[in-house]
């Protein structure tokens, strides 16, 4: 009991430090930084550009950047590998070769092909082109997109989350071989695992069948939760706010409940018993649309929109210090935006857990609907 209290105290302290570090870092960041390429953030347009840049995935891992007295841009962070499948096969190089350029002016030569990065997307130039030319809507006219398998910032985030989950849980699993109660960090994980089992899996899927789906539900719960929390650190990940990630998560849930659908489920979906025959095809279309489109869509949109909205609001509030500087002075504006950011970050901590819970809960609910067997009288 005493040890549990100690670890709770430690966790609370660590959480507090983490929160204040986040707000502080995101506040100071905004003072100097802009988009990847340079300049200071002053106007509303630049702030909204900066927020858009943060919400998108990037090929560099930039922690912060600033302009020194000589007007040079300094970037702190590290470059990540760019892996492309171009018209001449596999091409790989480090993203530092683009020199943080994001508007297609820096070209990288590989295998006689030229590559340019425009708005975080990598383009391959046509055979006879030497520079990227744009039409009036700022679309490249002589370059086309390539298949991009790069280790981007989000991929790094996913790898870190996978690593944490793998090591945390293998350690926890091994402890049960020698003792009844886990020690150390496992003591934090155990109640969460039990929570997912008792509050999410059992009531929604049913006592008989829940065991089969526990690995999936636990994985998806901790994956989303850890990535949501990583989004609140100063590292600036926005993984669960990438629509590609949430689409894949929703598709996995779709595959799980479709492949495990019971005979009753398919009978009720495709040829509803107890309904006039004329209505049955219409009902089948509705049910299929619900299960194949609407349910996964609502899952993916909810997670994506919540995290995106949370990140934009926190960053917008942090940017208040720039907009209010003329009215309240530097210290006053920083103070206002610091406390508002702190407040919103605490709410975001709740949202991070809630969204992981909701995603797992609804997945369990849909799986439960699919595996349910009806009693025939």
């Amino acid at each position, binding site marked *: 009991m005493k040890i549990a209290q100690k670890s709770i105290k430690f966790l609370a302290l660590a959480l507090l430090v983490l929160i204040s570090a986040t707000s502080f870092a995101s506040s100071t960041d905004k003072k100097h930084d802009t988009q990847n390429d340079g300049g200071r953030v002053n106007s509303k347009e630049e702030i909204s550009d900066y927020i858009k840049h943060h919400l998108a995935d990037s090929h560099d891992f930039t922690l912060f950047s600033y302009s020194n007295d000589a007007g040079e841009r300094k970037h702190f962070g590290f470059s990540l590998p760019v892996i492309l499948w171009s018209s001449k096969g596999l091409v790989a190089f480090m993203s530092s070769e683009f020199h943080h350029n994001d508007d297609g002016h820096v070209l990288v030569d590989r295998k006689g092909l030229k590559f340019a990065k425009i708005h975080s997307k990598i383009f391959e130039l046509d055979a006879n082109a030497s520079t990227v030319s744009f039409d009036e809507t700022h679309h490249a006219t002589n370059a086309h997109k390539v298949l991009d398998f790069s280790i981007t910032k989000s991929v790094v985030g996913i790898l870190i989350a996978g690593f944490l989950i793998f090591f945390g849980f293998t350690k926890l699993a091994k402890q049960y071989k020698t003792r009844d109660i886990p020690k150390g960090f496992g003591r934090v994980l155990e109640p969460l695992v039990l929570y997912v089992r008792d*509050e999410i899996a059992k*009531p929604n899927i049913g006592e008989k069948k829940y065991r089969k789906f526990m690995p999936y539900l636990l994985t998806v719960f901790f994956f989303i939760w850890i990535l949501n929390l990583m989004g609140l650190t100063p590292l600036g990940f926005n993984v669960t706010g990438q629509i590609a990630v949430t689409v894949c998560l929703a598709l996995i849930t779709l595959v799980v409940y479709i492949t495990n659908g019971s005979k009753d489920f398919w009978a009720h979906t495709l040829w509803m018993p107890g309904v006039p025959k004329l209505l049955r095809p219409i009902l089948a279309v509705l049910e299929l649309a619900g299960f194949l489109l609407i349910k996964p*869509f*609502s*899952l993916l*949109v*909810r997670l994506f*929109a*919540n995290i995106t909205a949370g990140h934009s609001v926190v960053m917008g509030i942090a940017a208040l210090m720039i907009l209010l500087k003329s009215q309240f002075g530097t210290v006053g504006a920083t103070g206002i935006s610091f406390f508002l950011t702190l407040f919103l970050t605490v709410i975001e901590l709740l949202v991070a857990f*809630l969204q992981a*819970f*909701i995603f797992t*809960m*609804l997945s369990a*609910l849909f799986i439960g609907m699919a595996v349910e067997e009806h009693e025939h009288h």
Partner: protein
Amino acid sequence: MYNLIGAGLIVIGGGIGLGQIGGKAMEGIARQPEAAGKIQTAMIIIGALLEGLAFGALLLGK
């Protein structure tokens, strides 16, 4: 401009819906405090479904 008005309408609708869900859940909990856990879970699920709808509309309007 129009999409901002639309966003406002969506938020009004979503707010009314969430208010109804939260209010009824609280009434339910006040009447039957022992069922608080079950009511809360059901409330969160319905809230999430509503949220999905509202966010979907917001995204489409964007």
